[in-house]
């Protein structure tokens, strides 16, 4: 079988691994803070603004749902300070068609052009459907959306999403809400090295150290929700994550030394205060 020419992978050193201090630009918007946050699972929505202030996060996610008169769920938008970019997600979508519909409604309702595509069929692990996500990316990017697809870290899918017009890709570190960190580490590394789009590690990051590690590896940003919003003090945790993300990014710019198998003394191996 002759492979499709579109599928051939260019083994380029992607922009993500560039060690120059380049601003993060997604869809023409520059982000000086590389921590994106989510609004899910806050004990109180009043904690959103202090978290955003403490972390300095410039983009935050939200979802669109049918109104439930019985539930206490309030309009989330009023709790998000002006100036923070809104990233509505298409959660609840089981296929490309549903994701496209949600995206169109979110934009028409005044949420801007950013959209996080989230197509999930599996309710046990909440793993994204890369194929349907790619389809939705193609449709929405043609309509002028700034598309950020949440995806399984798979290089072929990422290339297809890039071709489909994604503005960035958002591979998962571990399943949503698990706090297990970068379980997909080797595959994230492949994406980082071979995809020219910004790579935002989304989902599964449970500790600031794991966010720092993602940035050290070459990620352009991370999206953290559960680990911040379910911490005892979300504002403080938001700040800790922002510091870790900045530290990881700074470490990458500084170009880290290689790992070695054996010890390499940091102090001189001569002039010891003892008689041989």
């Amino acid at each position: 079988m002759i492979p499709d020419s579109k599928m051939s992978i260019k083994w380029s050193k992607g922009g993500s691994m560039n060690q120059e201090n380049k601003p993060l630009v997604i869809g023409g918007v520059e982000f000086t803070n590389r921590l994106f946050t989510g609004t899910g699972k806050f004990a109180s929505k009043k904690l959103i603004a202090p978290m955003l202030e403490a972390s300095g996060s410039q983009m935050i996610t939200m979802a669109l749902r049918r109104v439930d008169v019985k539930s206490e769920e309030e309009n989330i938008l009023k709790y998000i300070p002006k100036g923070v970019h809104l990233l509505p997600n298409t959660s609840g979508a089981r296929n490309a068609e549903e994701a496209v519909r949600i995206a169109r409604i979110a934009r028409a309702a005044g949420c801007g052009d950013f959209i996080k595509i989230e197509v999930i069929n599996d309710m046990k692990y909440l793993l994204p459907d890369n194929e349907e996500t790619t389809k939705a990316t193609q449709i929405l990017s043609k309509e002028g959306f700034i598309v950020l697809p949440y995806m399984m870290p798979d290089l072929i899918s990422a290339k297809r999403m890039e071709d489909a017009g994604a503005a960035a890709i958002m591979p998962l570190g571990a399943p949503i809400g698990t706090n297990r960190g970068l379980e997909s580490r080797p595959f994230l590394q492949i994406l980082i090295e071979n995809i020219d789009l910004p790579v935002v590690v989304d989902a599964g990051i449970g500790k600031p150290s794991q966010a720092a590690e993602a940035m050290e590896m070459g990620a352009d940003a991370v999206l953290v929700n559960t680990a911040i919003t379910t911490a005892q003090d979300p504002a403080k945790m938001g700040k800790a994550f922002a510091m870790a993300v900045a530290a990881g990014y700074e470490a990458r710019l500084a170009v880290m030394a290689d790992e070695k198998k054996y010890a390499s003394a940091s102090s001189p191996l001569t002039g010891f205060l003892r008689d041989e």
Partner: protein
Amino acid sequence: MTLVPDPGYAGVGKRFCPIWAKWRRSLCRIDGRGFFCALLKGREKGMKLQVNGKEQECSEGIFLTDLIEQLALPIEGLVAVVADEVVPASDWKDCSLNDGMKIEFLNFVSGG
């Protein structure tokens, strides 16, 4: 037995069905202005909408703003989608609803 005026009768309008009208009048005569009249009147003048996937009865010729009021929906942040088009809040009062229309009332909620 005195003949009770049928409040629903005037609303039959265009499609007059003598058998139906006779049966309905007889029901109203028995029950006066009570349950049956109200029920029949509703049937004659109401329409059915699909609101958030569920059937919703309402009176004919109402506007979107009336439906929102009828359902006592919280207005703040409310997103109204009529026949797959988002209707801005400023247009709710001018958006007339027809029988069988699909309407979604949504809002932005917490999510990651």
